[in-house]
């Protein structure tokens, strides 16, 4: 199916099940502990041994020697593979930066340098600790982003976007601010650490039962890393215990399990120990963001500059905090520039809403500061600078309702009753503050395929390599197919995550829901055609599918009577045409937050949160709501507690566990309210929906930060806003 023009009125506009609050279909399995995650696949391969990884204890340099003698002699050990046993294996894909294994070169701390395979976990772990490694550490390595920024900030760079004469417009602006914001590196901290069961067969085929967001990428990456035919690789990942970008790509667990299995001649399973995850895998890079805004006397932005600097391994891409600033607000002149500080921390790569999550932490605080400079209501300031066109590209937004997010949010939140003088509202021991922020995140779509199999009993099995990482794919794909085929959802079975199934979009960049449901619809369209043919029609155009029947004129045929001799299989994929790129397809939100800050200690407590989202058709309000409240929780963490602490002498992420990397817990989260605007975006896809998974995070931290300022009068420009950054400036008590 080619999606080459904006969707017209179609079956999804009179939905019976799409858009309904259908309970999550994998719920009963997950809540009773029966959904099998990667490390739990006891049944898929006989004789599984256990692998345990060893990580480098230096961040940069070379390995001179590895003594494995004691480890090999340890009880239960069946095989050891060290990085010195082979040349560096190819980097798995263009989206990876660091090598995952092989060779004597160390690129980052906890790079995988050995795998020990033993009969039990306890044996493998103990034997791993017996390996002695001799290193030659490179003492000239760079680990300090702020130091690197100081060195590079005054060196001019070619701007990514330069529209008009920013410098002159800024110099002549009636009002202006020039501020610098810092975000620290963050970790995805998904609850399930990376894990893989690997098994090779006698023909050199490998199967990897793993935990991954992008099955086709994983399959290709394994083939590239092991320099083997891609058709000899199978990847299976039906349940994923969270990803947030950390599982977009294969990581060392896949490589170590496969190497270990090859060496031992038996299947091997390996899970990353939690303290290994943070330095071995990827993180969201830290950023330093200089933002300059100039306005005219009425508050119209005449000049906007956003310069972002982030850390990356050499050759990587860091965190581009500037993207939203090109498109989000009307600006007569623009200057957008990025700098990459190449250093030797672990690999920076995508984490939920890469770019915007960090960039809006800067931009939305700057918008708040500019509004204050103008003496304007920050909601009004954003409304004044709303635009239906991206100032950077000149392209129109396909559908943009940001102003409604702001005005309806302000109304619902009671914005008119907010504290208007920073540091002035006190309830008992608590200073009360209110903050607002806008959110912007593109909503891309990508080719996605599916297969639908109409069974003799009238049920349908859907197969696609799409993943459900908690996002609700099982549920919304079932809804889409039930809608398209006019069936009861109970008669639709969805199978996901197996590379033997048609290639899908996978889960990432908030493109998964839009793309994979359109792919399922494409397959259903093919099936409807075949069903039509079976009842003597050339195509399905004049037929109606409802209540488990197909109706042609006066003749109604139950779907159970269509394929009594055996299943009918139909497969197709959706391809999104270039017309989609003529518009800016994006999602929007406004977040409103109330905080209390302890007047004595500076402790910040979020008291209530409201998000108003503009994301097109909401396919399932239950799962979409969970995506957004979950993003809001992550935004609270980004604002107040999440910080990878970098040992800038050794290049180690030192707080590499869940006790010291502080994500929000139950007690941190207040009442959350979410509103989805009733909007449709026909340019986005046949279902007129857009992504919500990343939108929910965007802007949240900025709203919290602005509320903290409003409560205290202290503007902390370095996230996370911990009490030490507030104490000195708190109002006298």
């Amino acid at each position, binding site marked *: 199916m080619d999606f080459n023009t904006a969707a017209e009125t179609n079956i999804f506009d009179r939905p019976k099940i799409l858009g309904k609050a259908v*309970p*999550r279909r994998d*719920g*009963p*399995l*997950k*809540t*009773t*502990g*029966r959904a*099998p*995650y990667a*490390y*739990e696949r*006891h049944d898929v391969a006989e004789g599984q041994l256990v692998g345990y990884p*060893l990580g480098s204890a*230096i961040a940069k340099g070379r390995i001179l020697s590895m003594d494995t003698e*004691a480890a090999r002699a340890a*009880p239960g050990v069946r095989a050891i593979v060290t990085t010195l046993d082979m040349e560096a294996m190819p980097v798995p894909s263009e989206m990876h930066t660091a090598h995952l294994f092989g060779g004597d070169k160390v690129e980052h701390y906890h790079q995988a340098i050995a795998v020990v395979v033993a009969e*039990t*976990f*306890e044996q493998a772990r*103990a*034997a791993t*600790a*017996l*390996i*002695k*490694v*001799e290193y030659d*550490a490179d003492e000239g390595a760079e680990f300090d982003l702020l130091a690197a920024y100081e060195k590079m900030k005054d060196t001019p760079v070619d701007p990514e976007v330069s529209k008009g004469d920013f410098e002159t417009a800024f110099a002549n602006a009636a009002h202006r601010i020039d501020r610098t914001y810092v975000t620290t590196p963050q970790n995805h*901290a*998904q*609850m*399930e*650490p990376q894990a893989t069961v690997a098994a090779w067969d006698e023909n050199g085929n490998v199967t990897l039962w793993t935990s991954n967001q992008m099955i086709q990428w994983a399959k290709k990456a394994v083939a590239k890393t092991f320099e083997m035919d891609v058709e000899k690789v199978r990847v299976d990942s039906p349940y994923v215990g*969270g990803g*947030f970008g950390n599982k977009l790509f294969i990581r060392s667990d896949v490589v170590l399990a496969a190497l270990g299995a090859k060496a031992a001649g038996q299947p091997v399973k390996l*899970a990353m*120990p*939690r*303290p290994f995850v943070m330095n071995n895998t990827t993180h969201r890079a830290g950023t330093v963001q200089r933002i300059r805004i100039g306005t005219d006397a009425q508050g119209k932005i005449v000049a906007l500059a956003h310069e972002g600097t982030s850390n990356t391994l050499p050759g990587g891409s860091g965190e581009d905090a500037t993207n939203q600033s090109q498109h989000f607000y009307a600006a007569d002149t623009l200057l957008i520039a990025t700098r990459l500080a190449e250093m030797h921390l672990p690999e920076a790569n995508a984490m939920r809403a890469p770019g915007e999550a960090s960039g809006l932490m800067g931009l939305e605080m700057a918008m708040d500061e500019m509004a204050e400079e103008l003496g304007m209501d920050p909601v009004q300031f954003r409304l004044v600078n709303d635009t239906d066109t991206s100032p950077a590209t000149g392209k129109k937004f396909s559908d943009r309702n940001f102003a409604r997010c702001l005005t309806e949010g302000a109304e619902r939140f009671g914005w008119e009753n907010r504290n208007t003088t920073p540091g002035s509202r006190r309830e008992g021991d608590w200073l009360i503050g209110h903050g607002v922020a806008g959110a912007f995140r593109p909503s891309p779509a990508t080719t996605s395929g599916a297969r639908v199999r109409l069974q003799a009993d009238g049920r349908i099995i859907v197969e696609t390599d799409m993943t459900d*990482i*908690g996002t609700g794919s099982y549920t919304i794909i079932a809804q889409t197919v039930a809608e398209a085929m006019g069936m009861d959802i109970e008669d639709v079975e969805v199978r996901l995550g197996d590379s033997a199934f048609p290639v899908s979009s996978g889960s990432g960049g908030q493109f998964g829901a839009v793309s994979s449901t359109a792919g399922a619809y494409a397959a259903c369209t093919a099936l409807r055609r075949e069903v039509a043919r079976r009842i003597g029609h050339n195509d399905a155009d004049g037929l109606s599918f409802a209540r488990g029947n197909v109706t042609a004129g006066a003749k109604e045929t139950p779907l159970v009577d269509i394929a009594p001799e055996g299943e009918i299989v139909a497969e197709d994929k959706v391809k999104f045409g270039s017309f989609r790129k003529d518009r800016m397809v994006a999602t929007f939100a406004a977040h409103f937050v109330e905080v209390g800050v302890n007047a004595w200690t500076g402790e910040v407590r979020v008291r209530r949160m409201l998000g108003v989202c503009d994301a097109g058709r909401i396919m399932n309000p*239950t799962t979409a709501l*969970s995506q957004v*409240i*979950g993003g*809001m*929780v*992550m935004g609270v963490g980004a604002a107040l507690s999440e910080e990878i602490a970098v040992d800038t002498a050794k290049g180690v992420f030192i707080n590499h566990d*869940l*006790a010291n990397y502080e*994500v929000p*817990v*139950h*007690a941190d*989260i207040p*009442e*959350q309210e979410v509103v989805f605007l009733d909007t449709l975006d026909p340019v986005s896809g046949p279902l007129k929906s857009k992504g919500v998974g990343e939108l929910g995070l965007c802007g949240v931290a900025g709203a919290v930060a602005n509320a903290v300022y409003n409560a205290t009068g202290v503007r902390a420009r370095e996230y996370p806003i911990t009490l030490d950054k507030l104490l000195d400036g708190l109002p006298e008590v």
Partner: protein
Amino acid sequence: MNTHSDMQAGQDTALPGPTTSKTRLVVNGTERVLEVDNRTTLLDALREHLRLTGTKKGCDHGQCGACTCFVNGQRVNSCLSLAVMHDGDEITTIEGLGTPEDMDPLQAAFVAHDGFQCGYCTPGQICSAKATLEELRAGIPSHVTKDLLANPPLSPEEIKERMSGNICRCGAYANILEAVLDVAEAR
């Protein structure tokens, strides 16, 4: 130049004495006798030896709560406890609370309120929720209990405090609270 030998954990393989022990557990009402490596945690005894994989390993350090299950009626982080310490103990896991066809009221409430996304922390959340309600009913105070002499209330604040050892990175906290309140009120 520096050398690296992570820790001494491996050295104990040379220590004298038996390295495994026979342990009798009563798991979800059924007696199970295991011969386990002395280093095996209760969590791994469940997941690896008994293949009861509903109890999850999120951190293996007692930091995330995904491994929460019951020992003799009290919730524990099973990753912080060795299997050999539980000879004769009664263990209840998420599998013992209900099945997909016959869910415990809390399991059903988690589904109804969408109290999860990826599902990996969920068994631990449900076990902790069950324990939270029982601890409240037993009048056990918490950090946020204002009157230590009165029975703590079944309030959102009390529930959130008692659930805070169970991390949910998907951020389903608000829905989990709704699910727990729902069951609490039904009782």
